[in-house]
């Protein structure tokens, strides 16, 4: 560990906090439908698009209508993407003449991008045409992110509105978020990346002879445009197989920092939108505070684990005195790689700039736990926010009684209906992660995909299903996931992991919006202070941790303790 390493973590958090206020304010104006400085330019576009689609922007939707619109829209996105992937060979913009995708892989990939997971059971440069990348995958990167933010908006309305039956209009939220937030930022961001050296072209493979005399095909394409939304939308699906470890995706330390910031930017700002919407920004700060505390501890732990060179393994060359460098880019080093790994798994991004499979047991356990906790540490755009609110509801419900009132959050009583829905949503992750991992443990098709045996092999499978169910999309590497078994089971995990949480959350939004709010008094539990932050963190760790502890014990913990005691994992 070095001072520089710790400084990187501190600088990162400081820069992130600087972004929260302006971005939060801007998005809050969009949330309430106020004019922003882009309105003169984009207002006509927005109105035109809505009119073209025959949508009355003033119409407010019941949560079920909102959910139906969201599901319908995502189904459409899936069909379109699946179609493109299955027919890319016959479509334009295919300079490398890549073939169509097999049905299982196309299904898996389409689900993956529609659900904002971006699990990639393929290598981008050797599988996807430029059209599939730009018109298929990148489009879903935008739309799945916009869907997530729209859902966060709907949930915020649930907390902020009183006595209404509606939670907003999905089509309007979707259009606004895409037009005013995602597209403008990505435009600038992509240009910046191009300036830093990320390619943006439609070139075929470039054959070169390397210094060693070997022949190599260098793949390029419209990388920058895709890179921007991949990070900002916490999608994480790389243009190249190596993802953000590839120099064309992530050429320098500066681009690395930019990427890390853009992963958290919107998620962090959403907490501020929430605070503003409920009329007390401290409410948002409390949520963000809980997230960042968990984040800093996780990042510190990973950095510490990766920096320490375990005595038992010093004979391995990659484990130098400076720490565990296996699977890491020397361009970024241990601190930035550890930070990136924690960020990408805390948010449901899944972009990677190092191989998580090569992390030490403990260093790899933090990303795994981050995903298992539901990616509530800032989280995926929208998804992280509503995941954290799920925990907030449970925390308030369990501990809120201890102030001598029936539980209420932001003045709204939490009753049987909300708890029922919350538990429904909470059950999804363990069902998908533990259920499918247990299945993979005993069927030959599941075991066949592993690179390693023993506890590490178990971690690989556990990580894969966690990543899918959590819509993260990062891989522990190691696992060969392009088999029918993994394609299908992971696709199911992604699908259920996304929508089986979203729909109950929307129902909660609807139930909350209909409630009246009790004005706060000295007798109500304050949800904007340090105590609430501590409580929320405790519930996230205890609730999330207890669910997955047996599996963690058999994976990373067994590995780590074996390493400590010098035994074989």
């Amino acid at each position: 560990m070095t001072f520089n390493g710790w400084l990187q973590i501190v600088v990162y958090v400081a820069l992130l906090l600087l972004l929260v206020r302006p971005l939060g304010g801007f998005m809050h104006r969009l949330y309430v439908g106020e004019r922003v400085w882009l309105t003169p330019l984009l207002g006509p576009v927005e109105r035109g698009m809505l009119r073209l689609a025959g949508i009355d922007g003033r119409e407010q939707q019941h949560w079920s209508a909102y959910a139906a619109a969201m599901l319908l829209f995502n189904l459409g996105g899936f069909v379109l993407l699946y179609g493109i992937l299955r027919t890319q060979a016959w479509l334009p913009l295919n300079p490398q003449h890549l073939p169509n995708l097999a049905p299982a892989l196309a299904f898996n990939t389409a689900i993956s991008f529609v659900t904002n997971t971006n699990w990639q059971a393929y290598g981008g440069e050797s599988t996807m045409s430029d059209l599939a990348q730009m018109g298929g995958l990148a489009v879903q990167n935008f739309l799945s992110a916009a869907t997530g933010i729209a859902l966060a908006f709907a949930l915020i309305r649930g907390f902020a509105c009183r006595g209404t039956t509606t939670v907003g209009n999905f089509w309007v939220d979707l259009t606004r978020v895409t037009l005013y937030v995602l597209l403008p930022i990505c435009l600038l961001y992509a240009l910046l990346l191009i300036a830093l050296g990320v390619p943006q072209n439609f070139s075929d493979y470039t054959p070169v002879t390397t210094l060693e005399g070997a022949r190599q095909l260098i793949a390029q394409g419209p990388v920058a445009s895709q890179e921007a939304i991949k990070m900002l939308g916490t999608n994480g699906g790389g243009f190249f197989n190596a993802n953000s470890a590839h120099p064309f995706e992530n050429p320098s330390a500066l681009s690395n920092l930019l990427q890390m910031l853009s992963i958290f930017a919107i998620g962090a700002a959403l907490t501020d939108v929430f605070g503003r919407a409920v009329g007390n920004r401290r409410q948002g700060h409390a949520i963000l505070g809980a997230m960042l505390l968990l984040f800093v501890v996780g990042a510190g732990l990973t950095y510490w684990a990766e920096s320490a060179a375990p005595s038992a393994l010093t004979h391995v060359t990659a484990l130098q005195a400076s720490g565990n460098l296996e699977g890491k880019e020397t361009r970024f080093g241990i601190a930035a790689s550890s930070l990136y790994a924690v960020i990408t798994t805390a948010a449901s991004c899944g972009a990677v700039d190092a191989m998580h499979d090569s992390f030490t047991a403990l260093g790899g356990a933090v990303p795994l736990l981050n995903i298992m906790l539901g990616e509530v540490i800032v989280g995926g755009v929208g998804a992280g926010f509503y995941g954290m609110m799920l925990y907030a509801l449970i925390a308030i419900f369990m501990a809120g009684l201890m102030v001598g009132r029936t539980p209420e959050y932001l003045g709204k009583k939490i009753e049987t209906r909300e708890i029922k829905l919350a538990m429904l949503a909470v059950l999804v992750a363990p069902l998908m992660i533990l259920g499918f991992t247990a299945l993979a443990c005993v069927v030959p098709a599941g075991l066949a995909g592993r690179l390693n045996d023993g506890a590490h092999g178990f971690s690989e499978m556990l990580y894969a299903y966690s990543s899918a169910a959590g819509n993260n999309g990062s891989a522990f590497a190691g696992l060969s996931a392009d088999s029918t078994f993994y394609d299908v089971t992971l696709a199911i995990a992604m699908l259920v992991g996304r929508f089986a949480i979203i729909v109950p959350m929307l129902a909660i939004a609807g139930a909350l919006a209909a409630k009246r709010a009790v004005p706060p008094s000295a007798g109500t539990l304050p949800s904007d202070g340090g105590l609430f932050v501590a409580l929320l963190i405790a519930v996230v760790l205890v609730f999330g941790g207890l669910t997955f502890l047996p599996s963690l014990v058999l994976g990373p913990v067994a590995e780590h303790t074996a390493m400590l005691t010098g035994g074989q994992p």
Partner: protein
Amino acid sequence: MKTTSTTQPHFPWRETASAALRKLDPRQLIRNPVIFATALVATAATALFARDVMSGTAQLLFSAQIIAWLWFTVLFANVAEALAEGRGKAQAAALRSTRQQTRARRLARSGGEAYAWVPATELRSGDVVQVEAGELVPGDGEVIDGVATVDESAITGESAPVVRESGGDRSAVTGGTRVLSDAIKVRITAPAGAGFLDRMIALVEGAARQKTPNEMALTVLLAGMTLIFVLACASIPSFAIYAGGKVSMIVLIALFVTLIPTTIGALLSAIGIAGMNRLVRFNVLATSGRAVEAAGDVDTLLLDKTGTITLGNRQAVAFLPAPGVDERELAEAAQLASLADETPEGRSIVVLAKTRHGLRPRDVAALRARFLPFSAQTRMSGVDIDGHELRKGAVDAVRDYLRTLADGRVLPEAVVAGADGVAKAGGTPLVVARDGRALGVVHLKDVIKGGIRERFAELRRMGIRTVMITGDNPLTAAAIAAEAGVDDFLAQARPEDKLALIRAEQADGKLVAMCGDGTNDAPALAQADVGVAMQTGTQAAREAGNMVDLDSDPTKLIEIVAIGKQLLITRGALTTFSVANDVAKYFAILPAMFVTVYPSLAVLNIMHLHSPQSAILSATVFNALIILLLVPLALRGVKYRPAPAATLLARNLAVYGVGGLVAPFVGIKLIDLALCAIGLV
């Protein structure tokens, strides 16, 4: 707060044990998902054990112990509930003993005095019965004729008899109470078996108990957590197979039962019943657990000034003579005008005249005076004596009186100013006039109850707003409100104003509590979230409220709120404790479970438990015993001191959250040591 010890002189061992066994009925168990799940897996484990006995597998002693403790877990939950119910049953039995076979004189429908003796059980609503001295009132009803003193000690425990009379706010009689003198005609309002006493018995017995909304929500949460642990445990065999090991079914079941929130699951209904019983011990009956829960949530307390904030009577504290009038002259006139006035106010004037000016009360009869009692028309009282006309009354009343005199006099400015001064200070001015001349003002002061100011401050810290309801004018009301320290007041309040105020508060999302006794309070009592009717009140008021205070003490509203809060805190504290316990149980069981597969996991055995078997057994034993240990807490309720929510939360989180994390580490270690010492593992 009054609490009684949980250890009773005659602990009902047999009753509790048999009740606990009866509660093993699956139809009862299913109401509690966590305990039901425990019973299910215990049954499965027992079946497996039977099979193992047949096949003669090893580890039978270990399995048998685990299974025994699983069943103990279920039984302990039943014991907790039976104990809570048992306390209510004792109270109910005392009530029921008054419920002897009563006969009633049922008057003929045609009217007249003709009656027939019928058993009380045959009475129906609308029947009219005659009850005479020495007889029990056969059922709940309304006095429609006559006045009687009634001994209501069977219900209230208060031995002093009360007066019940037709009309007005004292017309309700309760079945099972005894008429001491005179005779009354009562129209029965509740059929036999549905009377007040019957409902009370049913309530304290917990027979009519339904889950409250918050209890239901909590049950859903606990059921959800149980499902999560089903997933967590069900996936383990497959993981173990992968790792090349095997997990025995009995160990898996032990892990499952220790992880699911059995502690709070077992105690949840006991907490609810105990909360109701605490109210009963306070002589307050709630018609539902929902009302107790609502009491904890109250945001606004409407309190009647008289009897709650001030002592029922006002006292004279000063004579303020008009210019040119000697104070002694005023005192004497006031004294004479009050001699026949038996109200506390009147008596206090006589006392003040004596203490201030040494004026002895004179013999009323010897004065040959003609006393005029207070009447609603004149709103004055007074006396005609020796040709003088002495009057005392409110400012308006005296002003009207002077105006009606032949020469149409007016009140002197100075007297009006003096009266205003008294009113501004929170007092009630009484103007005294002699022969059409205002002599001055008597300052009657409301006496604020001792300690009430501190209690309101306490309520404010709890986040509860107090509103004083009074018929006084706004000036007086403001002064008293300031002195008593209430947050707000409603002056010159009529019953409909109360109702409007409650609706306005509720429109803001607040929960309102109030108490009342009169028929005209009934709508407001019904509208309030917590409506406490006084036992002395009318039948209408008692029907409208969701609680009845048997002592008819309006101050109790404050205790009721505290009991409601205590109930909720107990529920939250034990939930938090239960969930926090799981961490230690994992540390006990997980290494024990997998250490054969991954020996390095032994480092997780931070409690240094003796062996895998002892670890698993200790966790199971702890899980069962903790229920028994917490029963007293569940029945008594956790300690509650009024404080802001943040303080309460911090303290309770420290005690029950952190305590819940730490306690099982210690407990499991101790049990492990004990088990090894005895040689059970």
